[in-house]
């Protein structure tokens, strides 16, 4: 983790535009900035309406698990700034749950690094998520699609 990395878990609502502005203010000569905003979905895996999404994290350990992904992204794409904010605790459908942004001299690096970091967050980062519906509480595991997406980066390294 360098001074160009911002990794934060917060139980306060995320303001994606405030984070975007904070990150953009730190750019030094980069021509490209890519951001991802994830929004809590209204429908659970069992098709019931979600009342509350609960995200647990292990302070310190979770940020460390994110930092490992950031280090990989830095090594691979030579990104400039990296800014990751993740909501934890209880949230409602429609709330921003994650904001990830990277910058780079050229856009391809920023697109790929942000894409990679989202796959990392979805499969490797230490979060525990449960969906609370009228049916009760269900702990979530990474979707098969998320694991498949994260596999793309390994294929490229091996190939």
């Amino acid at each position: 983790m360098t001074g160009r990395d911002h990794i934060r878990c917060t139980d306060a609502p995320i303001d994606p535009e405030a984070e975007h502005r904070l990150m953009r203010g730190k750019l030094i000569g980069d021509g490209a900035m890519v951001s991802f905003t994830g929004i809590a979905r209204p429908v659970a895996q069992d098709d019931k309406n979600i009342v509350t999404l609960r995200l647990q994290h292990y302070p310190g350990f979770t940020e460390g698990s994110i930092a490992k992904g950031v280090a990989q992204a830095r090594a691979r794409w030579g990104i400039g700034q990296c800014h990751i904010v993740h909501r934890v605790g209880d949230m409602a459908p429609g709330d921003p749950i994650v904001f990830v942004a990277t910058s780079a001299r050229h856009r391809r690096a920023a697109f790929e690094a942000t894409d990679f970091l989202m796959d990392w967050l979805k499969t490797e980062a230490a979060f525990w998520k449960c969906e609370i519906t009228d049916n009760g509480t269900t702990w979530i595991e990474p979707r098969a699609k998320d694991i498949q997406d994260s596999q793309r980066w390994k294929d490229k390294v091996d190939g």
Partner: protein
Amino acid sequence: MSGGAHITLLAFGQVGEMVIENQRPISAGETVEKLLNALCIEHSGLEASVEHPRFRVAVNQAVVPFGHILRDGDEVALLSPVSGG
């Protein structure tokens, strides 16, 4: 806490619904595996979670193998398979 070695036990995800986070005495040379065995006897339903291939244990914030020996003052975290963000 007084007398003998203790650890601080933390538990995340589904396992956190079964195990109560607390201070807990450990015997000399107690391994993570021995701790898990004891917890599985105390908490019904825990065994299936512990045997999940993606279940992990962290000691002082670093993931360790189950043969790791615990020491006085360790922070031991039972980590259910992560959900991702």
